[in-house]
């Protein structure tokens, strides 16, 4: 027996470097029933320092914030960097690296005055030239930065990015002196300061990038903790792939006295159920999301631990207006008017989402839609009959495409049922793996498709420009010259009131034409330990850590 076991385990471990170590039981206390008793790693670190453990959803692609695109990456960008401006929890624009700024009366020239005490984590001052060179890098074609279009508002930026202009000094980015940065825009962009909260506008430490040859290309080691330099409230201490990222309070950040939490540990936990268990054992203070099945239980039993915040996005279904039967606007409107969205958000989506009867989230930077439609079943039936399908008779076969995810399936099933009951039409559901589904979307290979849109900045513009004819995110084949004309005139409007009234007209067109069907406006639900104070997120789900604190 011994020989056999030896043989078998030798065979098993033949290729291993690691010894077949015994699993050591490290259980210190076997009596504890309390869920607060966190074992070794967390307890060991608990030496009077304030350490916040934060569920960050997924492993970041990289910490080079000019080439990343995801939400987890954006959270980290806010931690390690700071842009020219920032925002307070009420969404007012507040100074960041820039102490104050002037805007020319025509809205085309922005002059930022940088603060003298803005520093990189290695002690270098943050200069206007750092910003200009960072923007040049972001726009360098060879870098292939997906978010480079965020900078296209500036004169020459788009041309430089598309290799039509090779002399960067001809663009509208100018370092007037080390502490003065001037941007010249190609057209007035009233939401520019809000848009600047996106990490595409953050500066990078140019000498570090030069050292690693990263100025014109991706895939260099400058983002490793030993090389990394940032200018934000925290600095990068440790990055263990798929395990955690440790951020330490930066001693060089200009507003360091406002930062209260000593360390933030970002855990890339992909599974909501795993996160929820980690929350219960005290391994996480804040989760990325809440398992849908557990949300109601938490709301009932531990309401103090649940947070549901509005999220600046819309969940909708996209029609392909070149495919039957959705080439007929009456069918599109009939489908949109016949849904009971209240029931959907109350019984199916469950996280306090708001039913959507227009195309922009409520009270978006002061914009409130005046053209919201209503659920109207008689009208929906009339429209369907007028389109040639009375009570759903002879309605062609329609397939609804969604990406493979439990939540989308349940929503699709609920809507399928509502249409069957209310209009007598039958819709088939089919799902595709994420990238196949996105491919079908961009090649417009679908009839009806689930979709979602999260804005890049807080302004109604970010919900209207995508419906421009041929916009890369439109994907419906729908287009309207009147709409495109209004969109162009919106940016030229002298005041926000004038601009918003143009958006109202655009919204009217969308409601009449219904190229997409709004379903609900997103919310963001998560578990937050009652120990965490001042964790305030903006509708873009940005959390500026300097406002947060952790009770012992």
């Amino acid at each position: 027996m011994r020989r056999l076991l030896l043989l078998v385990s030798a065979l098993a471990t033949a290729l291993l470097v690691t010894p077949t170590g015994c699993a050591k039981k490290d259980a210190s206390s076997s009596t504890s029933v309390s869920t607060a008793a966190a074992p070794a790693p967390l307890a060991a670190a608990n030496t009077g320092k304030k350490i916040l453990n934060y569920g960050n959803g997924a492993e970041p692609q990289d910490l080079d914030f000019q080439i990343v695109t995801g939400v987890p990456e954006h959270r980290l960008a806010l931690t390690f960097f700071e842009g020219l401006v920032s925002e307070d929890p009420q969404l007012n624009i507040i100074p960041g690296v820039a102490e104050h700024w002037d805007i020319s009366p025509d809205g085309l020239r922005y002059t930022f005055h940088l603060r003298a005490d803005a520093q990189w984590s290695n002690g270098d001052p943050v200069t206007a030239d750092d910003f200009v060179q960072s923007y040049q890098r972001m726009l360098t074609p060879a870098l292939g930065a997906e978010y480079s279009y965020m900078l296209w508002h500036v004169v020459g930026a788009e041309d430089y990015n598309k290799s039509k202009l090779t002399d960067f000094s001809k663009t509208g980015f100018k370092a007037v002196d080390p502490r003065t940065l001037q941007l010249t825009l190609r057209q007035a962009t009233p939401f520019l300061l809000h848009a600047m909260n996106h990490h595409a506008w953050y500066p990078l430490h140019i000498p570090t990038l030069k050292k690693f040859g990263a100025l014109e290309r991706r895939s260099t080691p400058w983002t490793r903790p030993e090389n990394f330099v940032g200018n934000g409230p925290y600095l990068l201490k440790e990055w263990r792939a798929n395990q955690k990222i440790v951020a330490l309070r930066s001693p060089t950040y200009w507003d360091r006295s406002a930062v209260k939490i000593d360390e933030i540990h970002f855990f890339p936990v992909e599974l909501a159920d795993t996160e929820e268990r980690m929350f219960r054992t005290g391994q996480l203070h804040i989760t990325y999301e809440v398992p849908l099945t557990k949300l109601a239980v938490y709301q009932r039993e531990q309401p103090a631990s649940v947070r549901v915040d509005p999220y600046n996005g819309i969940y909708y279904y996209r029609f392909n207006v070149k495919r039957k039967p959705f080439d007929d606007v009456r069918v599109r409107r009939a489908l949109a008017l016949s849904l009971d969205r209240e029931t959907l958000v109350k019984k199916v989506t469950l996280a306090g989402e708001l039913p959507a009867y227009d195309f922009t989230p409520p009270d978006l930077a002061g914009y409130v839609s005046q053209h919201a439609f209503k659920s109207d079943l008689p009208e929906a039936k009339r429209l369907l009959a007028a389109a040639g399908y009375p009570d759903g008779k002879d309605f062609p076969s329609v397939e609804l495409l969604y990406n493979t995810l439990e939540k989308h399936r349940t929503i699709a099933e609920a809507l399928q049922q509502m249409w069957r009951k209310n209009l007598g039409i039958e819709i088939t559901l089919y799902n595709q793996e994420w990238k196949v589904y996105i491919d079908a979307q961009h090649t417009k290979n679908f009839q009806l498709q689930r979709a979602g849109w999260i804005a890049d900045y807080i302004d109604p513009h970010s919900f209207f420009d995508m419906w421009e004819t041929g916009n890369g995110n439109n994907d419906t084949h729908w287009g309207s010259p009147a709409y495109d004309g209004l969109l162009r005139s919106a940016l030229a409007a002298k005041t926000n009131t004038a601009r918003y009234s143009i958006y109202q007209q655009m919204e009217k067109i969308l409601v009449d034409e219904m190229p997409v069907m709004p379903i609900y406006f997103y919310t963001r639900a998560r578990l937050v330990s009652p120990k965490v104070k001042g964790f305030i997120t903006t509708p873009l789900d940005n959390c500026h850590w300097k406002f947060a604190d952790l009770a012992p």
Partner: protein
Amino acid sequence: MLRFITSRFLQSLLALFLVITATFFMVRFVPGGPFTAEKAVTPEILRNLEAHYGLDKPLGHQYLDYLGSLARGDLGPSFKYPNRTVNEIIFDKVPVSAELGSISLAVALVLGIGLGTLAAIRRNTWVDYIASSFGMIGISIPTFVVGPLLVLALAIHLGWFNASGWYGPADRVLPALVLGIAYAAPISRLTRGGLLEVLNQDFIRTARAKGASEFRVVTRHALRGGLLPVVSFLGPAVAGILTGSFVIETIFQIPGIGREFVNSAFNRDYTLVLGTVILYAVLIMALNLAVDIAQAWMNPKVRLES
């Protein structure tokens, strides 16, 4: 013996080449690519990205480039994680999966062979019934049920362990137990079956007639033949267990290679897909060869040359 190993080695090389070629072209024909994103990427930016990674060249050209760098041991850059290479990811994560795998394997072998042997020698008694039910339950209940159940009991209610993570030695216990049980179940059933067959044979009767103790009969004579089915099972099983388990690594938040294996396909991270497939193929081939050699040693009836 040497001829056998040499010919098997050459066969494996050919198979590996075919696997690489098939994978290379198959991932390319799947809809969507590494830069397919919900927010549209402008055509100019997409072209820049493709140029950076050499995806703008003809596919045949890319294939030859890939084989060239593979010959130098370079698996290329990852598309999803721009600041890491596939080599780094594999060298970073395989040890984690291998550590988890070897602990689990030890659990599986001790538990599986132990229970299987007990069940066989106490056939049709309550011992057998309990051991066999363990086998059935272990096979039929998936790890994504057993895992959270153990976490609920031992981590959340008793507070002995972390719910997930891979930091201290204590963090190894739950995942290794779950993965070990999953493999112990089939091993115990194979051991029981193999042993029962052998125990009825003449040489066992001879051993008993010559006065060997029951313990000696089982350990010295019966197990050697009785474990043959287990050994054939172990080849692919060890490859699987060492390259990590997607489910276990996801549930317990373990930075192993199993997650990369699955996620790279979702991310269309072409180079990482190929890297993990090559790793898996090499392991399977090496272990199958090892199994053949072991079986020949255990069972004289198997002739390697034939």
